[in-house]
């Protein structure tokens, strides 16, 4: 048949073109991969190697390359309370952020109407001021003679009579600082929900509560997962909130790493703690994503 020849040549041309396109796609990856290699992979390897260094026998206080796994066990044995506290504080902050952010994001997505853009700007607006400065501001807000503490004391709601320099202040600071990272992904995934699905749920005998549980909540899961990760991960490694708002009894693993690195110059211990923190978070995140089963919703 006559048309066979041109058809065949057309398909090879198409194949060549698509091969060329995929080659261009790989070329586009180079800057990003290069960035990752220099600023992520190499530091990570360095960090891991540092974490295994041993103290020099001839010059105490300096470290030489080695394979000393006891750095890990020693560090964890000494600092496990701060480790655990980090995850407890980060977990609490994430839970509070979710409870505060979900209704807010829901309101912005479904009820705010023309105010939607303004409200989103307001959510992000605090980020225009420095993280450090905002945390200092909380020192004033939660100060012993400040309105919050005196108000709660008048109602006899505070066991220690104060907020600043307690775990409550640290969790409050973490919640506040990472709230936008919870609101934005939640908003994005609630906004994507077709409102007609909620109407369909109502039409099919679902009471508002049932429709929320069976339709809105499951459809917002991608936002919940993204928001909790974006809050939990940085909160677990944070040290500024514990430093400024907590007492010495409220130190988190970030503070320990910082002290070991800057003050004690115990690089292997600091590196081992950093690496262990990353590994633990990675394992937690993976099992969390797998359990929440959001793969086919994203």
């Amino acid at each position, binding site marked *: 048949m006559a048309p066979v020849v041109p058809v065949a040549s057309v398909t090879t041309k198409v194949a060549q073109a698509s091969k060329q396109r995929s080659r261009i796609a790989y070329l586009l990856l180079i800057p990003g991969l290069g960035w990752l290699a220099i600023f992520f992979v190499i530091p990570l390897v360095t960090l891991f190697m540092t974490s295994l260094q041993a103290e020099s026998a001839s010059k105490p206080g300096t470290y030489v390359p080695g394979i000393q796994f006891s750095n890990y066990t020693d560090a964890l044995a000494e600092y496990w309370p701060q480790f655990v506290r980090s995850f407890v504080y980060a977990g609490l902050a994430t839970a509070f952020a979710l409870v505060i952010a979900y209704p807010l994001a829901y309101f912005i997505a479904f009820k705010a109407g023309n105010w939607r853009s303004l409200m989103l700007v307001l959510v992000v607006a605090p980020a225009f001021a420095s993280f450090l400065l905002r945390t200092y501001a909380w020192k004033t807000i939660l100060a012993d003679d400040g309105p919050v503490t005196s108000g709660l004391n008048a109602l006899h709601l505070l066991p220690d009579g104060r907020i600043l320099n307690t775990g409550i202040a640290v969790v409050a600071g973490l919640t506040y600082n990472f709230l936008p990272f919870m609101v934005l992904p939640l908003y994005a995934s609630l906004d994507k929900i077709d409102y007609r699905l909620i109407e369909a749920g109502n039409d*099919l005998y679902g009471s508002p509560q049932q429709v929320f549980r069976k339709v809105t909540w499951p459809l917002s899961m991608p936002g919940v997962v993204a928001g909790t990760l974006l809050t939990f991960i940085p909160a677990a490694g944070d040290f500024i909130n514990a430093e400024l708002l907590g007492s010495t009894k409220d130190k988190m693993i970030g503070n320990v790493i910082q002290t070991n690195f800057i003050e004690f110059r115990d690089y292997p211990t600091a590196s081992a703690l950093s690496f262990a923190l990353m590994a633990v978070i990675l394992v937690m995140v993976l099992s969390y994503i797998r359990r929440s089963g959001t793969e086919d919703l994203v």
Partner: protein
Amino acid sequence: MPGGVARKVEDLRLVNLTKQFGGTKAVDDLSITSPAGSFFALLGASGCGKTTTLRMVAGLEDPTHGQIFIGDQDVTELRAFQRPVNTVFQSYALFPHLDIFENVAFGLRRRGVKDVDDQVIAILELVELSALARRKPSQLSGGQQQRVAVARALINQPDVLLLDEPLGALDLKLRRQMQIELKRIQSEVGTTFVHVTHDQEEAMTMADTVAVMNAGRIEQMGHPAEVYELPRTIFVANFLGQSNLIQGMKVSTGDVVEVSANGLGFRIPSKRNVAPGQSIVIGVRPEKIMVLDAHDESKLPAGHNRIYGTVTDVSYTGVSTQYLVETPWGQSIIAFEQNSIVGDRCELGDPVVLGWAPEHTFGLDPAEGLNAGLDHAVLELESDTEA
């Protein structure tokens, strides 16, 4: 329902239903009764208030005034999830995170039915989708999704099933197929169906009763054939099918109204006339008109209304031939002739005589203007060719 006990079927009554959005009345003092077990179609162009009416019945929109009754129960104050009504949404609104089985079971589960398996399987069989029960909606074609939407609503055995342009997203062939399918399901389950559509052909093929809506009001309501054969307003004459309309004056009244228009005399049985005053618009459907060569005029039965003119366009459409005939006063008359007639078709430029029986003529009130309902119909035609 297959295997179910005989159950009561309820009618749907809307009483003085009004919905105001800001300053505009989307639905204006609507009163309709859709008899129990009937297939009722609300037909109108977009923005005529038909969807708003349906949403009020579903409970998704609160009426400004008026009441909604299902059987003897006033449901106006009930919320959507408390009403014995289910909707097949225009976009289907299937839950993307649930599979077909769970989508269909949704209503039963919300009402606390424990064992849903048998019912879900039975209804999926009714819509011929049993094999796809464990698929997600996104894995189904448009026609299959549409059937899931119907099954999801019907399984609850609602007193009234609301269909909001359910076939709008389907291509023409599938739409025809689904029309027949829906009609079959309706006669099988016997539920009262209220169907909202802008597709006049769809409304006519499926419904027992058609209500033509315009600007929030019902223009005319009745059996499709009745509304088509005897439109009572110019809007209906133009919107539902096509009509030739000629402006004239009454000459005499009686059992037969005699009308003079453009120097010609026309006769209409007075029961087919609704024009109250002297001036009148007479109308005739294109397929009622016989097109004859001018010198064959003697073949027209005596007493037929007739118009003389020149053929300006002939299009052969297979089933029929469509003529455009220009009259001496410059109006174009459209006529369809079945291709079953033996003999020559008329040609371009032929002088012809158009004839039709007085019983096929209708008389309308000219007050609303000859173009009422026309631009809508043109728009629908255009959107149909795009689809």
